[in-house]
């Protein structure tokens, strides 16, 4: 799985959502039978998926927010999302 194309709009499908767990002090991605604990980068990437932004837009937002080089952000975010897409926890339209 290669991850989202620049022009495609990645989103969390119904049944997959972000949740802040106060007891553990961490963000989780909740999906059927899965709870993935997210680090700061993971939760930033997933919070940027609003179904409107395309992947290029997600990268632009993240690199602006973190002051990181866009190429680096694109590589990391694509890898992260590709893995979740293979597990059907992220989809792209």
């Amino acid at each position, binding site marked *: *799985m290669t991850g989202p194309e620049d022009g495609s709009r990645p989103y969390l*499908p119904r*049944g997959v959502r972000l*949740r802040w767990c106060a007891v553990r002090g961490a963000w*989780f991605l909740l999906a*059927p039978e899965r*709870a993935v604990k997210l680090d700061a980068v993971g939760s930033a990437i997933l919070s940027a998926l609003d179904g409107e932004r395309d992947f290029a837009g997600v990268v632009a937002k993240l690199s602006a927010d973190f002051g990181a080089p866009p190429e680096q952000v694109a590589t990391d975010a694509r890898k992260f999302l590709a893995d979740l897409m*293979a597990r*059907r926890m992220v989809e792209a339209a």
Partner: protein
Amino acid sequence: MNAEALTAIEKAADAAPIPMALLAELTHRCPLKCPYCSNPLDLIRRSSELSAETWADVFAQAAAMGVLHVHLSGGEPAARRDLPEIVESAVTAGLYTNLITSGVGLTEATFADLVARGLDHVQLSIQGTDATTADRIGGYKGGFDTKMRVAAWIVAAGVPLTVNAVMHRQNLDRLSETIDLAVRLGARRLEVAHTQYHGWAYRNRAALMPTPGQVARSGEIVAEARRRLEGVLAIDYVTPDHLAKYPKPCMGGWGRVGLNVTPSGKVLPCHAAETIPGLVFDTVTERPLAEIWREGAAFTAFRGTGWMQEPCASCPRKAVDWGGCRCQALAWTGDAAATDPACTLSPHNARMRAEATGEAADADEAFAYREM
């Protein structure tokens, strides 16, 4: 690792971790009679079932403890008329709400109501890939067609569907068809679960245990399907216990990941824990859930590693698989604290394997159906 580090790990292992999941057995009532049902042989009647208000309180307590997922199960949860209310209270508590259903007894209107109240996910069990086989195994005529209809509602509502197929000797040869069926139904996930041999399944083991050849083939089928269906269908598959080298960690470890609440409110470390003699269970109506989890007698009995005997006690895998399944240990060795006989290091492993292969070779296809 030095001895001091090991002691530190063991101490940490004996403390109660933050639980992830709650299995809420809403009722034991079910129109089906699966011969591998994991409900206890002694089923709870309707009059002793917890009320919807009590469930709401249990969900709120669980969420405050750090539980993230709730699995609404049974029996058949749809046998409860107040299921929509119960779903809503789980959603309100902030829990990821999963309905585990056979589909039988669920109407289209009720299902729409569950969706409107925020149900996150449905896990639909199938007993076979065609009506004749499925209805024979489930012991319920028309069950298969109902499931097909229910799957269509779920997918049409956009709710993720997981198909759960419990496999055993009499349907393992249909694994490819099971995978195809899951794809046709629009499932995002397929769980291929092998029967575990305690409770009803232990009683029916002669009719259920797969042959080693069947198991080897199914491993190959799954590997191929996973490659072919990447991004379409995620497949969960675990080799059956008695043919693997080491057992699976029971529930991710006794009292480590999840807890079960029975229809009458007893809190169990595992759904089959009541088969273990001598364990004392607390009830949600008598004690706070967090306290039961942390220090309840049934939870501390096999939490961590302190209770272990040899060969587990000195085994480097003891904090990996936690000695395997207590219920399976009890069913096969008579001692719940023994090493799971599915472990190749257990002195009972040879007997389990021999019996398994012997029983798998038997042509006995008759089941003792689960009955109230």
